[in-house]
Each structure stands twice: as C-alpha cells, then as structure tokens.
C-alpha cells in the first residue's frame, strides 16, 4: 500500500507537469519556470513566518504569490531594458538567497529544511494524510489532484486563446484576446504545479518534470494535442521507471526520475536522428538507381 501511494504520487507529478509543460515549451518560458521553482521557497518561508504554521493551504498561497511575483519582476526588468536571461538570473537568485537566509534566521527549528524543499522526499509521502469526504489519502495526492484539476480547467477554458496568444501574441492582441491575463494566469498555474509537486519531488526536480517530457514530445509532435498526449505519457513513464530504478539502487527517487527524463529525451532525439539519416540514405539510393 505504501508503495502504491508513492508510485501514484509520482504518476500524478508526471501527468500534472506533463500537461503544464506543453505551453511552457511553446512560449519559450522554461527558464521562468526554473526561476519560479527556486522562488517558491521564498513564498513558503514567508507564509510560515507570517502564519507561524506549516499549514499546506497557506504554503500554497505563499508559493503562488511568490511565483507570480517572480514572473512579474522578470517581466518588469526585461521591459525596462535588461536582457531577459540576466533578468531571470537576477530575480531568482536574489529571491532564493533571501528564502534560504530567512529559513536559517527564523525557521531553523521547524521541519522546513532547504534540502527537503529542493530535493523532496517522495518516500515520506504516504505518512502525511488528509481525510476529506470520508476519503483518506496522502496530502500530496490531494494537492496534486487539485492542481491537476485546476490545470485541466484552465486549458479547457482557454485552449484556443492560449494557442493563439502563444503563436502570435501581437495578432492575438489585435483581435482582443486578453494576452496579459493569459500570461499571468498561466504563470499562476505553473506556480501551483510547482508547489504541489515540490513536497514530493522537490522544487528543482519539478522543473525536470515540467520541461523534459514536453520537450521530448515537442521533438516530433505535429499538433499541440499530440504534444499533450505524449508529454503526459513521457511524464508518467519517467516517474514509474525512475521510481523502480531508485529502489533498485537505493538512492534518491526524485533524482532518479529527473535522470530518467533526461534519458527519455536523449533516446528520442537520437532515434529521431537515426530515422532521418536512414530516410536520407534511402532517398539518395533511390535517386541513384
């Protein structure tokens, strides 16, 4: 049963991040997600300092605010003439450093250590449970289900607007699509995803799950729908394979999941290259005949 919850959590992380990652890749915002995954720490610590509890709800709120703040600050610095990569670098390292410092100053005695936030401990997931509507499930599973629902709802409501605003924002604005609202709405859903997943796989490895599966799907997908399907499949596969590899070598589950994500990408890219190469040699052979 314990193993079941751990695998289920991993699966949910893979699927939720797989869905959220598609537009992240298409909007070329991978590094902003990376920045957010670092700065949620700041939000969580602030939530703790203000409320003095480790209540999941307030942490979700704090992290979401920190995520939006990150997206906003990056946008602000970028629009005032600082090149985007540097803007991202300045914002996330500053907020992350502030988060780490605040933990050492104010939250040293509580169960809120930095390494846990960074690397997560999916193996502990089954022990922390919530009961809701007479159903008892691990807290992480509840949170992930909630965020998965939010992400799906956002996509169902705004799919075509997101598609247009991503492909051609200037045209989108010229026909009245709320481009700015969509940008921050999407950033909020990324922050939610990061918070829900950070407890189990850790903030930094969330990014592997956000970027990796959808990047792999992006290599060969012809439509966005296809990209969504493969992204979810890759996310789920990486989490399951990663889990059993980690169990086999008795090492970090989250780390192994990220490594599997990388492996999936490399295998896909290489096989794509090989197929292309074969096709080319075949064509040139036919031409020579």
């Amino acid at each position: 049963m314990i193993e079941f919850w751990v695998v289920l959590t991993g699966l949910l992380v893979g699927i939720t991040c797989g869905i959220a990652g598609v537009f992240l890749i298409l909007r070329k915002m991978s590094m902003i997600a990376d920045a957010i995954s670092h700065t949620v720490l700041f939000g969580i610590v602030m939530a703790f300092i203000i409320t003095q509890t480790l209540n999941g709800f307030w942490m979700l709120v704090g992290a979401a605010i920190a995520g939006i703040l990150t997206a906003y600050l990056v946008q602000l610095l970028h629009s005032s003439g600082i090149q985007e990569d540097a803007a991202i670098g300045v914002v996330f390292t500053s907020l992350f450093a502030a988060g780490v410092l605040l933990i050492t100053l104010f939250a040293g005695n509580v169960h809120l250590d930095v390494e846990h936030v960074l690397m997560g401990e999916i193996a502990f997931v089954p022990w922390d449970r919530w009961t809701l509507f007479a159903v008892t499930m691990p807290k992480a599973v509840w949170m992930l289900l909630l965020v998965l629902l939010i992400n799906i709802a956002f996509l169902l409501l705004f799919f075509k607007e997101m598609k247009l605003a991503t492909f051609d924002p200037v045209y989108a604005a010229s026909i009245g699509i709320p481009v700015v609202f969509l940008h921050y709405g999407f950033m909020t859903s990324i922050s939610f995803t990061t918070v829900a997943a950070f407890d189990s796989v850790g903030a930094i490895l969330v990014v592997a799950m956000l970027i990796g599966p959808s990047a792999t799907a992006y290599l060969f997908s012809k439509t966005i729908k296809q990209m969504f399907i493969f992204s979810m499949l890759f996310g789920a596969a990486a989490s399951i394979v990663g889990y059993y590899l980690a169990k086999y070598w008795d090492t970090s589950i989250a780390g192994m999941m990220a490594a599997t994500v990388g492996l999936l990408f490399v295998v896909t890219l290489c096989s794509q290259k090989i197929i292309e190469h074969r096709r080319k040699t075949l064509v040139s052979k036919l031409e020579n005949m």
Partner: protein
Amino acid sequence: MNALTVENLSVAYDKKTVLDNANVTVPIGRLSAIIGPNGAGKSTFLKAILNQLPNKVGKVEILGEIFEPKNLVVGYVPQRNAVDWDFPTNALDIVLMGRYGHTGLFKRPSKQDKLLAQQALASVGMQDFAERSIGQLSGGQQQRVFLARALAQNADVYFLDEPFAGVDAATEKTIIDILKNLKAQGKSIFVVHHDLQTVKEYFDYTILLNKTILASGATEEVFTPQQLQKTYGGRLFMMQGM
C-alpha cells in the same frame, strides 16, 4: 468618414523618439503603401496604430472610432519572421485563428468557422496544404497562410507588415491580386512596402514615412523624385532613371 486618421502621433523607445508628431488621413477604399528607409519607424507606426506600444501619445482613429480590438474591424498581418514556424500545428489551424475573435471566449470554432477558414485558404491558392505542418511550408506559402488568416477574420481595414519580403513571384502576384480584390469590395488596406519599383503598379495611395509622415496622398502626386529624395535622403541611388 476616413479609414485612418492619425493626429500628433509620437512614440519613444527609452531615450530615442522613433516617431515624431505624425499626422495623416486616408480615405476609405484605398490600397496604400507605407514607404520609408530602414529604421524609419514603419513597423512602429503600425504597432502604434494597433495600440501595442506603451510609450505613445497622440490620437488614432480607424473608421472614425478609437481602435477597439473587440470590434474586429482591423485585420493585422505581422511580418512573417515575427512568429516561430516550428509551432506544432497545420496551415488550416492557423487560418482558423482568424475566426477566434468571432467565436468568443470559452467556445470552440463552429462548422461555419471551419468552412470560412477553408474558403480563405482556398482563396490564396493553398487548399491542398490545409493539413500540412506550418514548419514544412515555404516562405511564400507561410505568407499566404497569414493573409488567409486575416481574410477569415473578415475585417474592414487591413494592415500588412512587409508581406512581400522574401516571397516568390507567384505568391507576390496572388497577394496583390487579393488585395486589389479587397479594395474593389470597398475595404481599406495599408501595406508596409519595400520595393519602390512596384509602388506605382500596386498602390493608388502612398504614405512616405521617415521618423514622421513626410507626405501622403494619391500615388501619382506623392510618389515623385523630389518627395522620395526628401524621404530617403542621399540613399536613393536605385531610383535614378525612373
């Protein structure tokens, strides 16, 4: 009523004033060329009209009203290289985007929308490429898809940013035929244009732009060596002998 009225329009990017006190009025039903040297602020002029720039002062009216995106009267065709053509979708889907404004929030495009998109695609001669990935289209084909999207929107005023840049001769012919056809329907079209050789042949109205509007009016009146000298300065060697 005029298609476009611009009064005292100025735009600044940080320290530099890119557009300084531009004034122009263009009547309805003209096919206008916007002409000027590189860096004269042509794209900026279009974006300022579409209200896409924060640091802008002055008044812009389209068909006698302040521009309001939701009215869908303006069909904008950006520069082809302004978007990422690796985006995973096909040609028909891009054209269908022209219907999104009519479809409205939360709703999916209807059968009618899809039909209109297919017609628009056919009118630019691309009906056989509907299912083709946009990344596999040639430059000219991509430009046709962009025009088809604006056609599917069924606007009254069209703004095209360099639609002839890097396209083949057949595409250029198709595009200009469509634009002339739109004009015949009473629509107003504005085209940022580079090739001075074709201005007289394509356009009946000309706007000369370099940091500000230097001249505007019927092509035969405005498109003169003196005016062009004023717009391009000494750089106008290719015009000699015209």
